[in-house]
C-alpha cells in the first residue's frame, strides 16, 4: 500500500543557478552559473555563460505574481516577446 500526502501547495526549491554581476562605474554585465554539488555534497559554481533575456523572463515569472508581466525594474525596462528592450521615460 502506497502512502501519499496532499496538504496545501507545498514546494521544494533547489539552488540551481547563481547570477554574477560584474560592474565598473558605468557598465555592467552578468553571467549565469549552474550550481553543482561535489562528491562531498558541497555546492560550487560551474563556469558561467551569458545571461539571456529568456532566463530573465522565466525568473521574473517565478519570482512573484505581484510583478506585472515583463516588468524588470520599477524605472524603465520592459521586455517583450520580440526580444527587444523597450525603454520608457517617466
Amino acid at each position: 500500500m502506497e502512502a501519499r500526502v496532499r496538504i496545501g501547495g507545498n514546494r521544494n526549491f533547489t539552488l540551481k543557478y547563481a547570477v554574477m554581476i560584474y560592474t565598473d562605474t558605468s557598465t555592467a554585465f552578468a553571467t549565469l552559473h549552474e550550481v553543482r554539488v561535489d562528491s562531498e555534497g558541497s555546492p560550487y559554481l560551474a563556469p558561467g555563460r551569458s545571461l539571456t533575456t529568456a532566463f530573465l523572463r522565466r525568473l521574473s515569472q517565478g519570482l512573484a505574481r505581484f510583478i506585472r508581466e515583463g516588468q524588470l525594474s520599477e524605472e524603465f525596462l520592459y521586455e517583450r516577446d520580440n526580444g527587444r528592450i523597450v525603454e520608457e521615460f517617466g
Partner: protein
Amino acid sequence: MPYSAGSFPANRPLRPSRGTRVRPVAFNTTPGLVATQLMGNNNGLTLPRLNGIPVEHHLVVDAQRAIPLATNLVRLHIAPAELWNEARRDPIAYIQLALAHWIESHGGEAIRRRFTYCATLTSCLDEFAQEDKQNGNRLYLTLDTESAGYVVLGPTLELLEAIDRRLPHTFFNLFVGGLSKWIRVYDYRDAEERAEMYREMSEGEPNAEEYEFPDVAGCLPASMKEEPLGEGDLSRLRATIAATPAGQLLGHAVEIERISNQAERPTLSDDVRAELSDANPPVPGLLAVFSISDAVEACFEEEAQYALETPPEPNLIIPIKPDDARSVRAAFHIFGTVCDVLAASVRLLEMMPGNSEWVVSP
C-alpha cells in the same frame, strides 16, 4: 556572448516622457568577450565555492495543519521521532513517512501482494479541484485503489460444503462481510443489481426479447442459499475441524471478522457527502466471483467500462482534526484496523484453493 547591461547606467537622471525607444538586446555588447576571459587565469582567482550555503528550501504552505498533526503522531507513538531526520525536517515529508511506517506495521507487505490500495492524507477530497478547498482545521485519510483484487470462491465453498451445507454461506459472510465493512467488494449482489438494471432498461425496447443478460442467479452455488450457521453452532463445528484445511480457512475468516469489529466506520458529515455528490461509486477493492469468467465477472467488466467516467469516491474516508490528539488517535486506530483486515484477507486468499494466481506484487 555576455549580455551587456550598459543601457541602465547608475546615475542617469530621469527625463520627461517622450514615448519609447526600441533597441536590440545586443546593443553595447562587447564583441569577442566572454566571462572566462574577464577572470584571472591560474593566478589564484577562482570561482567562489558555496560551502555551507543551503541548496534547498522547502516552502510549507499549510503548516498550520501539518505541524500539529506531526506533533501528535510523535506524542501518540504512532510514528517514531527518528523519522524527522529522514524527512529532512520537512513536516509534510515526516507525515508521509509516518503514514508509510503505520502501514508497514499493519501488514503493508502482505497487502501489496494482492491489493493496489493507496492511502492519502489530504486536505481536499476532490483530487482535481483547481485550488485546495479549505475545510477548516480538518484533514482526511482516504483509501483508494485503481484496480480490484480477485478471488475465486467456488473451490473453497465446495470444500466447506462437504463438511456442512451451511458453512459456505457462513464463510462468505465472515470473509466478505468483514472486508466490505471497510472497502467495496464487488460480489454477486452487485452483479444482480446490475443485471436487474439492464432488464429494466430493455423493457421499453421494441426488440427486448433479443437482449441477453448475465445469469447471476444461475452461477450462485446452491449452498449460498442456505441459512448461515449461528455463533454457537459455528464454534462447536470449528472445534471439530480446526486441524483440517477447511478448519483453517474458516479460522482465517473468523479472524477477519474479529479484526473488522475492532473499529467502526466513521460517519461522514453532510458537507463531505455534498462534496462527493457528483462522484461515482468507489472502485471495488476486490472482485469476488464463484468461478473464472462467470456472470458476476461479466457484470463487473460491463460496469468497469463506465466506472471512471467521473472520479470515483474513495473506498474509505476518515476525517481527522490534526490538532486534536483524540481525533488523530481514533483515525489511526481505524486505519490500522483496515490495514489489519486487508492483510488478514491476503493471508486467507493465499490459502484458498484456486487462488494461487492474481498476485500483483510478489
